[in-house]
């Protein structure tokens, strides 16, 4: 947690110094813009996190593994896409779940679809960050552009596994 934060603090300071040197008259407006954005999302983000956290506690996670085994093929990829889409929580929740699903006998291509689906549809990220900041129309545009990608990635993985011995 501290590593990325130090990196971000350093980057903020460096960029702030650059602005102060190259365009000092723009420093005030830039900080006012950041503050305005912050005020706009300051209430929305905790509310979004709360919604995602409640959802995360209500969804059962144990029933997933057996449905998406290596022999489940395209049907398993579609099921994994559905599971990934409703899986709330950040990576510290999702990767332990992926490992658990993996240990319960899920197939590799199906896990690829699961992880991509979680990345595309990530309920927690849409509610907590994307919707508050980018707005509903952008979320609609991104989802319309990307909804078919999780099964596609699963199918690519399914095709790659017999082709590349290392996988």
């Amino acid at each position: 947690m501290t590593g990325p934060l130090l990196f971000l603090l350093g980057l903020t300071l460096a960029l702030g110094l650059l602005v102060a040197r190259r365009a000092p008259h723009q420093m005030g407006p830039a900080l006012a813009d950041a503050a305005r954005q912050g005020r706009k999302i300051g209430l929305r983000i905790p509310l979004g996190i709360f919604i995602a956290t409640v959802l995360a506690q209500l969804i059962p996670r144990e029933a997933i593994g057996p449905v998406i085994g290596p022999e489940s093929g395209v049907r398993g990829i579609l099921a994994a896409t559905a599971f990934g889409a409703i899986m709330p929580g950040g990576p510290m929740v999702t990767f332990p779940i992926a490992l658990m699903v993996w240990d319960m006998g899920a197939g590799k291509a199906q896990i690829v679809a699961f992880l991509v689906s979680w990345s595309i549809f990530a309920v927690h990220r849409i509610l907590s960050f994307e919707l508050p900041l980018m707005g509903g129309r952008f979320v609609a545009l991104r989802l319309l552009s990307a909804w078919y990608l999780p099964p596609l990635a699963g199918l690519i993985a399914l095709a790659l596994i017999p082709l590349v011995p290392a996988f």
Partner: protein
Amino acid sequence: MAARPARERSVPDATTLGFLAAALVAAAIGLWLGGATVVTQSATDTALLSLQILPQLACGLMIGAFVGVLLPRDLLIRWVGEESGLAGLAIASIGGAFMPGGPFAAFPVIHALYRAGAGAGAVVAFLVAWSCVGVNRLFIWEIPFLGTQFGLLRLVSTLPLPLLAGLAANALVRAFPSLDTPDKDGG
């Protein structure tokens, strides 16, 4: 006429009220299905997480504002603007794939670039690359948890996705221009 903006500032906007309503519904459902502990546990987790991300969110907002000042607008538009085509999508995809950090820092920066003139296709490609390809996630999560073989399979399988999403977004915006609203600010 001139008095309106001052009044609007003190009242939460419609989007924030929507979030508030959804949070109340979520609390009611949590109470109904899981009991009071689900709600109190969620509220505690939310407070802790909000405090935890606050510094990163503040950095992200300032980085976004500074980048908006420092990055020449014509350069941004030439590289990843609406007319930048496949090359713009490729640049955005590579940038997104290597972008470190969580959503609290990433989204304010992406939003600033979108407002400054980055095309919708490039922004979508960047976000899909950041979330699906995510090279740094490979090292932090996938290789330790799921092994190198699986990590590489996942990486190779996701490589074409950002370009496809970016092309789809460009086509969608051409067909439905109202989907592309960088300055509406979501409010």
